[in-house]
């Protein structure tokens, strides 16, 4: 059977396994592709598969795989453009702002030497985040000038140029929870409240998810956020301040949905929703 669909992944975790199992269950001709072994020759004929679900865990590998496959005529979900935007917090913020969506006040200091001035222009407390990275890694609250100066001294000593750029975001005073909305093909597939300690509520860091019945305004916001970053499949993270006003924090292109699935139980089958979207031709 000629494969019409590929799943790109160098690491088969619980979500990838559920997706592959769902494709098998439906008898979809599918090929599991280890992205580490992929070499894309744009002078050669492209692969036989028409659609590729991009579940590559590494940002750079995911982007380059998508770029190359798109050049060879494959529809990649999510696309290179979506991954490039979602994988870079500054680009995400700019795309959301361009679409007129609410985001916390954010600045990018291109060198740590002047970051303290940018922080003080926003006002303490702020949160500093790495431009690239996920799971809440290195997300650091900055409550005061002394902390800010110490962090900048540390960042200035880092070797990689992108690590010396400082993404600064106003810390939104909020309840100890945020909202994760899963958007698939321009529709909300499910939503949860995520509860955790401090500024990080990531399930990967031990955050807990509870089902959330999303109102129409938040649903519209999440769909617009996914659209702003051109993502077919998106995990949109929203926080509400103490007055209930929402802001979009980030949009994830390779959604880890095990926590959401566990919280929502039989209300939604996330793997089935994603496969439905793929077999329908992956049109946003």
């Amino acid at each position, binding site marked *: 059977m000629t494969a019409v669909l590929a799943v790109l992944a160098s690491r088969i975790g619980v979500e990838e396994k559920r997706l592959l199992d769902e494709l098998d269950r439906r008898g979809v001709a599918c090929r599991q592709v280890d992205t580490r072994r992929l070499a894309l020759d744009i002078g050669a004929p492209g692969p036989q598969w028409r659609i590729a679900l991009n579940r590559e*865990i590494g*940002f750079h590998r995911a982007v380059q795989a998508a770029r190359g496959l798109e050049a060879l005529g494959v529809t990649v979900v999510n696309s290179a453009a979506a991954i490039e935007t979602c994988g870079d917090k500054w680009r995400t913020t700019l795309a959301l702002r361009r679409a007129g969506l609410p985001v916390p006040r954010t600045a990018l200091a291109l060198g740590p030497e002047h970051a303290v001035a940018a922080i003080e222009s926003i006002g303490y407390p702020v949160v500093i985040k790495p431009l690239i990275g996920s799971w809440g890694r290195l997300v650091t609250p900055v409550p005061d000038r002394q902390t800010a100066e110490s962090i900048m001294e540390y960042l200035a000593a880092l070797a990689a140029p992108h690590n010396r750029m400082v993404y600064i975001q106003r810390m939104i005073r909020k309840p100890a929870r945020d909202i994760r909305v899963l958007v698939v093909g321009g529709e909300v597939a499910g939503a949860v409240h995520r509860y955790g300690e401090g500024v990080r509520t990531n399930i990967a860091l031990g955050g807990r998810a509870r089902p959330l019945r999303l109102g129409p305004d938040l649903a519209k916001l999440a769909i617009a956020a996914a659209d702003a970053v051109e993502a077919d499949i998106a995990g949109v993270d929203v926080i509400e301040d103490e007055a209930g006003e929402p802001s979009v924090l980030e949009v994830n292109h*390779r959604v880890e949905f095990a926590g959401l699935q566990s919280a929502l139980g039989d209300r939604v089958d996330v793997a089935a929703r994603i496969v439905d979207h793929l077999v329908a031709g992956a049109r946003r």
Partner: protein
Amino acid sequence: MAECPSCTEDVGVGGDVRVNEIVECGECLSELEVVSAAPLMLALAPEVEEDWGE
């Protein structure tokens, strides 16, 4: 069953295991990658990299 490359204890996996799947050694808790499903062969899983994530 296959031998854990870290502690040499036997590691069992389900019958539906897939290549590149990540499993954990019950003895030493190492994260292991299935590099072959039949015969079952395991390797130490790659370390988390800076650009990994959602």
